[in-house]
Structures are given as C-alpha cells and as structure tokens.
C-alpha cells in the first residue's frame, strides 16, 4: 500500500514537473503533432500512387499509425524512463531508487514524464477519432490494442535496457527502441518470410501495431488472446531480466 502511494506521488510529481512550463508544454506537444502529420502525409503520398500494398489500404495504415503513436506516446511520454534504463544503470542514478519501498522498477518507470511524446499520444487518439471511422466497438478495440501495445513496448524496452546490467553497454537498449518503433511503423505484411516471423516473435513489433489495427477492422478472439499472451510474456520477461540484473548491480559509481 505504501509502495502504491509512493508510485502515485512519484508519477504525479513527474507530471507536475512536465506541465510546470505551460508554454513549453503546449509548444512541444504542437511540434510533435506537426511531426506526426508529416508521417501521415508520407503515407498519403505513398497511397496516392498505389491502391494497396499487400492487402493494406490507406485507411488501414492510418489506424495502424493511430495505435502506434498513441501507445508509443504513452510509453515514451508518461513512462519515459522505460528507454533510460541503461543510462540509470551505467551512471549509477539507480542508487537513489533502491531505498524506496516496494519493487524498484515501477519507481524507475514512473519517475519522468517527457512532454514532447505526450503530443504523440494526443495525436494518435485524434487521428483515430477523425480518420479511423470510430464507433463505440472500434474504439473499445482501439483502447484494448493500445493497452497491449504499451505493455509490449515497456516490457521490451525494459528487457533491452536491462542488458546494460550484464554487458555494461548502452547500445542494445537504444537498438531495441529503434527496432521496435521502426518495425511497428509499417504493416507487418510488407515483410516476407523470416523477417515476418521475427516481427511476431523476437521483436514483437507485429503485435504493437499491425495486429491491433487488424483487430479494429475485423475482431478475432484468437488473435486478441494471442496479443494478450504476448503482452503478458514480454512484460514478464522484462521484469525478470531487470530483477536478475538488479542482483548484479553494484552502482555505477565505479572507482576503477
């Protein structure tokens, strides 16, 4: 209970710090929305030349992009430290969190809100509402897809970032972030054979955007269950890798 209260207070403080500069907050959100509009423009331009790419039409890709920007906005904005784990481990900043009550990982994840990416989340919801042909049913599946995508991304980033405990390098964490976001930005059917398999299994990008987008158009209980199972598995793997790493952690304040 005490831990829950501390987590809540930590997150609340992070939000208050993020919105303290009201003008900066609005500016950064606007910048990110403009940035995302350019990506939509990219897809509009691509589909101005082709009707469909391997079964994906412009409307499908818009929904995919809405799921991705909303979920990535939540992950990189509201849970910003999910991408900073290697930095915390290597710089010794993690020390400050070890005395707090309850598990360390939630303290770390909730500690920082990055305004810029909140713009992504707002944009994603707006995009779905404006161009995603919303209905109560579709919106419910959209929300379901976003929640699963958030859990998958956080779990994956935590696992990738926690590799710093073992190899003392920041690069795998960075690469994890780039790869999951990059692969999630395109319909999974664009890729063939082995790559497609990798995107469902190794870097679960297929379940971050393509599967939720397909579920919104055509809900399938088996695919929905598979998405939940993947989210739970990735979250568990992330937590376990972090916990294992934490046992080896001896502070970044190295004397050698």
């Amino acid at each position, binding site marked *: 209970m005490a831990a829950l209260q501390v987590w809540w207070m930590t997150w609340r403080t992070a939000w208050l710090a993020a919105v303290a500069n009201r003008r900066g907050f609005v500016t950064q959100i606007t*910048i990110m929305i403009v*940035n995302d509009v350019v990506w939509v423009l990219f897809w509009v331009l*691509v589909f101005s*030349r*082709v009707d469909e790419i391997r079964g994906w039409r412009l409307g499908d890709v818009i929904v995919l992009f809405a799921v991705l920007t909303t979920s990535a906005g939540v992950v990189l904005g509201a849970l910003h430290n999910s991408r900073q784990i290697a930095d915390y481990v290597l710089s010794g900043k993690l020390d400050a969190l070890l005395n707090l009550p309850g598990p360390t990982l939630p303290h770390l994840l909730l500690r920082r809100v990055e305004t810029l990416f909140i713009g992504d989340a707002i944009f994603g919801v707006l995009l779905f509402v404006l161009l995603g042909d919303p209905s109560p049913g579709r919106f419910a599946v959209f929300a379901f897809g976003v929640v699963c995508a958030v859990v998958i991304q956080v779990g994956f980033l935590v696992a990738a970032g926690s590799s710093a405990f073992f190899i003392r*390098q920041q690069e795998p964490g960075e690469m994890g972030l780039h790869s999951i976001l*990059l692969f999630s930005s395109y319909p999974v059917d*664009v890729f063939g054979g082995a790559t497609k398999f990798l995107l469902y299994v190794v870097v679960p990008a297929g379940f971050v955007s393509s599967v939720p987008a397909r579920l919104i158009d055509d809900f399938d209980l088996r695919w929905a269950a598979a998405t939940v199972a993947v989210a739970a598995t990735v979250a568990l793997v992330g937590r376990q890798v972090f916990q294992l790493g934490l046992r080896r952690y001896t502070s970044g304040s190295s004397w050698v």
Partner: protein
Amino acid sequence: MTAAPRPALGGTGSPGAGDGAPAAPLPRVLWRALTLSARRTAGDAGQLALNAAFYVLVTTVLAQLWKAAAASLGGEIVGYTAVALVWYIAATEMAVNSIPIHLIPEIGDDITTRRIEVELLRPTSVMAVRVAHTVGRVLPRLALLTVIGVPLAWALGGAPPRPITLLLLLPSLVLAMTLNVVLQHAFAALSFWFGEAKSGWFLFQKLVFVGGGMLLPLEVLPQGVAGVARYLPFAAVAYAPGRLSSGHVEPWWLAVQAGWLVVVGGLTAALFTGGLAHMQRQGA
C-alpha cells in the same frame, strides 16, 4: 605590454591574432579538427556498430516497402523499378544516417547554455571549426555505411541499374553529408535568437525526410511540390545521391550540391557571426 588584438565577433578573427604566438593557418586548423574527430569516431566501435545496425534496419524496412509498392503496380512506380528503388533508398539512407541524429539539439544546447562562448577564444572561425569537427566525426560513419550499403542494396534488390553511376555516388555522398552538416549548423544557429533548437530540429528532419526525398523519390510528390522541392537544398542532401544510385546518369547533381554548399556555407557563417554578436551584446 601591448594588448593583442581581440578576435572579431563571431570568432572570425584573422589567423595570427592570438596572444603572441602565431596562430596556425585556418586550413591546417580545420584539417586537424577534422582528422582528430575522425580518429575518435573510428575508435568508437560500439557507436559505429549501432549506427551500422540502424542503417541496415531502416534500409531493409524501406526497401521492402517500396518493393511491395512497385510489385503492386506491376514492378515500376513513378519511373523507378523495384531494383532502382532499393538502390535509391540505400543511398539516401547512407547520406542521412551517417549524421548524428541529435546534431541540431547538441549545437543548440551549446548555444543556449553559452558553452560556445569559450570557442571565441580561438583565433579562428567558430563555425568553420565546428563544421570541420563534425565532418570528421561523420566521415568514418559514412565510409562504413557505404561499405555496408552497397552489398546490402545488392542483396535486397539485385545488381545496380547502371553500375557507372556508383562512381558518381561516392563524391555525391561526401557533398551531401557536408551540406547536411552545414545546413544543420544553420538550423541550430537559430537558437541564438529563439533560445531552443528542438523545433528547428524537427522541422529540418521532416524537410529532409519528405521534401528532400529521403523516404521517397521526389517524383512521388505532387508535380508542383516536386518541382519546388528539386530546387531546395534538402534535395541535394538526399535526393541527389539517391537519384544517381538508382541508375540516372545525371552528373550535374554534383554541381548543384557544390553550389548549395557555397550558398548555405555563407549563410551559416553569417548566422553564426550575427548570433555570436547577439550573444555578446546580451552579456552574461
């Protein structure tokens, strides 16, 4: 004791204007800055590996996308075959991905925190030394991406449409990279007046991604927009090497790139001189 003449505002003082000891000539200073940072980058294996891995990822993804798009139209889109598109993307990604992604915010940070003021103590151009340093930092990355990119494009798409254009590609990549570095300095210099560089960074990225043809050939844009985009410096940063790599024998792109380098170089020098003067007028 006679006071040594102070370097002109903007750190553009003439060589030899230091405290007694004659300063090294500007080309030698720039060469030293370039080679030192090139050596430093070449020694950072982790960062080079990350850079290469990211390049392979992006190029593979975009190549697959454009191949699929071309296949849905019978193998050709806006005059590019699937093979040409793969080589186009491989080249634009080489040119753009070799540059550190956070370059504009990094320079902007040095400006807004006034760390850049220390550089005024050097009797050379602040902007020229910074550009030389960054070009040196980028050259090993560009070399690596070129070495990886050519076989990657071959594997993803097949033999280059016209191998002779690969000879033009190499100087075009160096010009594109240098122009990109100078342009990013120009965008970052705006933070002398606006106090932040992030907005300029996002704007620049999008101008290169779409307006410069990094993600798609300019021919995909509506005709009027493509016509304008071709005459902007962003096209010289990405579209030019892409166009050459995709089998178009258009050597005049090298002249266009060199021309833009001169124009943008002059503009950036003026922005830095004006910006540093503005900073000094504001005081501590």
